[in-house]
């Protein structure tokens, strides 16, 4: 796509870019609430925050249709929200309440929602690659024009399943986009210690088209995703998108003392110079799509939305005991 037409698309899409901004702010503020709930011991289990990576989920999901499919990961709140989940039902799920997306039986790492094409977050690293590829298989089989996006972190590059699915998807020209979010750390280990060779050539070895994008730039992610999605929809097969990004917080909320694997200076640099919300906000202002007041107002709205959603979840009931044996079988 030429620079001129990209500019045209940008100007044309004020609503899109404002919506993208709102979605990123919603994810950031959702995760702030999760952190708060967790540290106040209101949230059981584990909490893996998506803060810092918002531009990827939002850039890609803005380019998808509602009935397109996604699979997500243990760090999945951002994907769910970006695909259209509502925060009240998500918080309810995180607290194990019956009103949650999965009646409280999935929790933070397993939010699923057929209404928004969310096939589910998966707590096995790389575990959803088959599911996403299978959704693409059925889209092709049923000729319904849908595509599937498989979100995963760079830690999943170590799983053999990925290579089996790349092979199958390319052989059968399936409409699936594998989105690798490289946030630099496999849990507490820098990816360079776990990942031999180049990342994109893992895909191109199968003749799967691969692209690399700045994962902190929501417009760049969106534009790239749109091309890959159109390509998939046209029957031209799978692709691989490497998004370079950063995880602002620890592997999970309890991972506080992180200096044995990364410096505070590094964290600070990403949080200031490369923050996706700040970068996009500055662009909105400089391109006169919004002014600072409008962005402040938007943030206040989202803050109120998240506060109400948390209150809903806290007030919601736990599932009754009968629920424990419900849904083992369909």
């Amino acid at each position: 796509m030429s620079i001129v037409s990209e500019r045209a698309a940008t100007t044309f899409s004020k609503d899109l870019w404002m919506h993208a901004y709102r979605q990123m702010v919603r994810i950031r503020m959702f995760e702030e609430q999760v952190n708060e709930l967790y540290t106040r011991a209101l949230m059981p289990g584990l909490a893996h925050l998506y803060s810092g990576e918002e531009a990827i989920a939002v850039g890609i999901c803005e380019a998808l249709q509602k009935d397109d499919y996604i699979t997500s990961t243990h760090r999945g709140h951002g994907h769910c929200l970006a695909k259209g989940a509502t925060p009240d039902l998500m918080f309810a799920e995180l607290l194990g309440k019956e009103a949650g997306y999965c009646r409280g039986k999935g929790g933070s790492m397993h939010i699923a929602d057929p209404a928004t094409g969310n096939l589910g977050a998966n707590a096995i690293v790389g575990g959803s690659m088959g599911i996403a590829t299978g959704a693409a298989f059925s889209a092709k089989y049923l000729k319904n024009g849908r595509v599937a996006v498989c979100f995963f972190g760079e830690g999943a590059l170590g799983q053999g399943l990925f290579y089996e699915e790349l092979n199958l998807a390319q052989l059968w020209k399936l409409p699936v986009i594998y989105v690798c979010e490289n946030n630099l750390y496999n849990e507490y280990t820098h990816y360079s210690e776990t990942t031999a060779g180049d990342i994109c050539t893992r895909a191109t070895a199968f003749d799967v088209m691969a692209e690399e994008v700045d994962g902190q730039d929501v417009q760049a992610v969106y534009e790239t995703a749109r091309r890959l999605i159109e390509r998939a929809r046209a029957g031209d097969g799978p692709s691989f998108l490497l998004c370079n990004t950063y995880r602002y917080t620890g592997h999970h909320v309890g991972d506080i003392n992180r200096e044995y694997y990364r410096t505070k200076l590094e964290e600070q640099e990403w949080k200031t110079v490369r923050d996706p919300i700040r970068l996009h906000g500055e662009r909105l202002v400089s391109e006169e799509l919004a002014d600072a007041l409008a962005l402040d107002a938007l943030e206040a709205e989202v803050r109120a939305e998240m506060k109400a959603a948390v209150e809903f979840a806290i007030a919601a009931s736990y599932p009754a005991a009968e629920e424990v044996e419900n849904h083992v079988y369909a």
Partner: protein
Amino acid sequence: MPDTEYRELTYAQAVREALAEEMRRDSRVCILGEDVAEAGTPFKVLSGLVEEFGTDRVLDTPISEAGFTGLAVGAAMTGLRPVVDIMFGDFLTLTMDQMVNQAAKIHYMSGGKWRVPMVLRTTLGASRRSAAQHSQSLHAWLSHVPGLKVVIPSTPYDVKGLLKTAIRDDNPVVLFEDKMMHHKLKGAVPAGEYTIPFGVADVKRVGTDITLVATSSMVQVALGAAAMLVEVGISAEVVDPRTLWPLDEKTLIESVKKTSRAIVIDEGYGRYGVTAELASVISEGAFYHLDGPVGRIGAMHVPIPFSPPLEDLTVPTEKALFEAARKLCRKS
């Protein structure tokens, strides 16, 4: 059995008929596996299907058991009813994350929102001289996992009716076929449409002195032992649970209440295995009717050896079952 015309079919022909009928009935049914199309599988169970249904519905996959099983999970969630072919039951180990952590859990974890209507067909059984990685009977592993259904048919009639039910079921179903039965075992199969519900055991032989609970090819072993027992004046009842989950506990227990004695025979390993579970069901359900401990016969607890005289030692036999039954009935 329904009142209809019967044909004599092999076990493999019955499998093939079930698949063909369901594929004609429902365009969402497709087959995925290694050499399932033109080759019709190395066991020639699926011969002819690709000619009728084409390569869009009968798909040869790469040798990637985890890959195509995982693909089937996603396809099942999004509108298809895939039937996955895992050539040897031993290769189930390669699919375990997809079956155990994904397929089995998705309906529950999503609060009932997503369903995984898929079938995984695979094999069990030793005595093909195939050694330790092509001979195991791992059906107990899957039966341990909530969310999966496990089917283990012993006759052509049963496999056809149960496979059709499996394809129509909205849950992940694993169906085990003893590869020694595919072409060697024949039986009467109705020409007309029928299905067999899950969770209904079948009394393969009526008797009064002892119940032999047998699965898959061990049903033939039990029937052979029962014929030998007649010679020593013992009347054996042979009960086939047909599905390990759901399990028809009632039929097993009622049979043992009648006969007061039971031996469970299954080709899997006995330790923490199917015989352990079934014996426990019987012991709990018919304890006050039992005249002796519930016996168990399974594969020897060793990797299956290659050398024919060694391999034959590992598999339960008619003679071993006969001896155990005679001992339990205290007739020597």
